């Protein structure tokens, strides 16, 4: 693996992880839950199918994007460990993308995955930029914006 690929893989894995796990700092963790898992309604849902209107179906969890993401993972012999959560969580998608990079998948494959599963993230990032109040997530939004 080239050094550049490795650095990119590390970068996307790190961004993915930042979306999958709350930061250790208590205030930043509260912000994580407010943004993504707010029991009063989350301003920035993390799942692709919430942003995409499927044919005849309004945005929802476990929509077509979930099924397509699952198919990608399975093609490579994997499944998300959590069976009860959608497979199109941006953090999972970024981790998987990092894996593709690290495993030396050709550029066409990477591009196809980007088109199918990362393009939408623009909408997520734009919400995050507007909604984030804590510097940790303001920076994360900026990094995602820069790299997606």
């Amino acid at each position, binding site marked *: 693996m080239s050094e550049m690929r490795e650095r990119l893989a590390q970068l996307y894995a790190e961004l993915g992880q930042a979306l999958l796990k709350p930061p250790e700092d208590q205030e930043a963790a509260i912000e994580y839950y407010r943004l993504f898992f707010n029991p009063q309604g989350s*301003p920035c849902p993390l799942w692709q199918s919430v942003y995409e209107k499927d044919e005849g179906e309004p945005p*929802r969890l476990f929509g077509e994007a979930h*099924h397509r993401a699952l198919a990608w993972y399975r093609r490579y012999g*994997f499944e*998300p460990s959590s069976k009860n959560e959608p497979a199109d969580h941006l953090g999972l998608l970024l981790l998987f993308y990092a894996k593709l990079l690290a495993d030396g998948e050709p550029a066409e494959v990477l591009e196809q995955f980007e088109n199918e599963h990362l393009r939408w993230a623009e909408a997520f990032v734009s919400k995050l930029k507007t909604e984030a109040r804590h510097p940790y997530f303001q920076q994360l939004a900026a990094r995602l914006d820069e790299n997606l």
Partner: protein
Amino acid sequence: MALTRRNWLKTAGAGLAAAPAALGAFEEYFQAASGAPAGMSRIVTACGICSPSCGIQAWVQDGRLRFLEGLPGDASGGGHLCGKGTAGAMMLYDPDRLKYPMKRTNPRKGLHEDPGWVRISWQEALDEIAFRMKQTVDSYGTEALLFVTLPLPDMWGRFMKAMGVVNRIDHRDECFQTDTIIQKYTTGGKSWCNDFENSKYILLFGWDILAKAKLAYATGIAKARENGGKVVHFSPNYTATSRFANEWITIKPGTDLAVALAMIHVIVGENLYNKEFVDQYTNFGKYESEIRAHFAQYTPEWAETISGVKAADIRRIAREFAATRPAIAPAHKKSLCANYMNSTQLVHAISILNILAGTIDRPGGRYFPRMHGIPGVDAIYPPPAYPPKKGRRVDGRDKLPLVNEVDQGIFSTLADGMLNKYPGMIKFSFWHAYTILGFPSPLRMVEALKTVDFTVVMDTLPTDTVTLADIVLPSAMYLEGNDAVARDYIAKYPQTVARQAVSAPIFEAKSIAWVALELGKRLCPDYFKTPDGSWINLSTLLDEKVKRAGLGENFADFKAKGLVEKQQPFTPRTTFVSVPGAEGKCQIYVPQFPAKGADPLPKWIPKRDAPNDHYPYYYMTFIPAIHRRNTTENNSILHEIMPTNHAIINPAMAKKHGISEGQTVLLRSRAGQMELPAHLSETVPADVVMVAHGFGHTSAALSLAGGKGARDGDLIPDASIEEFTAAGNYGGASCIMDAVCSIEPL
């Protein structure tokens, strides 16, 4: 985007310190694929949006629900689903579903405070709740616990009984509590079964039965019309049911009681009742002189002065109702049983009309369901003796013996109890599947909840109550659980549908039965053990219920069948009321009532709030066909059809006040005020303002419904228990629509 190409160029200068361990995270979140995706499969289950629980065929692919349709052969839905039932799939995957147990970090509470939520484990949540409950009971007694929930399922009911909970309260005072009380004493019990299709005369007071979109009823009414039956509808406004009826008669809001009393006057006075049934199966003979003397005062001419319905029409309809057999005057829920201060009396009067028609448990009438006997947990694992309930009822229910007897409660008086009667008494509250939007004057309930030290909310979706919680628990929804659901709306013979999970609960959602078990283990373990000393297992319990009900060897066997029925001939009942002194008869005159603070025969009392100089208009609310109370406004499909509510007024009222279509108006009542756009419609009388219930969820709480429309309850006064007793509201009818208002353009 050309992400990769862009980054090949950019990365060198990105300046990001890549965490060497980051790639290792892949192993944490992914595992080896366990097999090929499953194809499309059909799963039988049951709807949970409203009570008939129509049978469903769910089409599931790769563990995820794709769509829902009706279950052929199912009695409730007749093989169909209504719009709400079909759209239930969107509730399962609503992006706003509550996902994990969460805990508040900001101690300040209010609708506009940020609670500062953090995720906690179920273990942590249950330990904390158990600790708080124990601490509360040890320091203040069981009366300091408030449970706002139905006593269902049976495991949850067992938990509350084992804890000696005094203050469990549910919404049925806004629904059918009055009918539960009245039917217990007049016909032998509340039933949902109305044999509309075989009825020749259907007399509807207020109930907009077709717009409620309950297929079990709508289909029956449609068949009745096809079979030549007549439908008469008394309603202030012109509704879907009015349009369908043979006759729609407009009536002043809250005066149906006067018309019903006058109809009894005519039927009894002219001896038009079903003599055979009345002589054999009712206590008419025993109390004939009391009954005749009592109803003599309620002439149609008197009723006309109150209701605006012409005396000649009342007389004619009473005679038609008595002469056309079989006839039925159904009572259902809110619209007839709970709207006004006089709803208990109305329900009693309507029950008498059915008894006089002689159609109790007869073809074309109200009948009792024939159901599989599915035993509850207490029959399968008999519990140790439950502790006595000790302490004061915060809603003042103990002042109404008949409400006490049926163990329900009064939403309308809860805030008054918490704020004025017993301030500070409630230290801990647990809310399951109820929101403050369901209360009259919801903001009073918010103030009341702020006085509680610790509040737990368990629900499927964010509600305004979540905002005030200390711990939030994600609840599984009906498509995620297993159960045996007996048909009880169309039930001439037993039929039961297997409700089975279409998939495991999403994220960390759990059932309330599981929560009961887990809290039980921590707080009252003796009640949650089987005879051999092991913990009750919920799957084993369901297997045992299914087996004892004769539905199958176990749940797996039952669900493979999907639907089990036992066809048998319909044998009409010959004994009815089982309370002492009733001698198994239907009771027109209820001799047990005076000792319980109630009138043995229904007497006229007016609705609570009458139009006056300050508030000249009747305020009416309704539950639109599109939505299920306040629970479906965030459903993306239903939201698209009806996203918000309006003040619906007659063009004549609009003209008088200079209001145009869509213009924002200010409505005021003695309880509060609200702003919303006007909608002009000839269907509403010129002295009525109508507003749909279910809207006005606090902004941001729900991604679709949040901030849309106005809370209808803001104009409805809550009450003190003394107001109820003084008015003779012995059934605790919640007055959920008993309000008057003013209107002005903004």
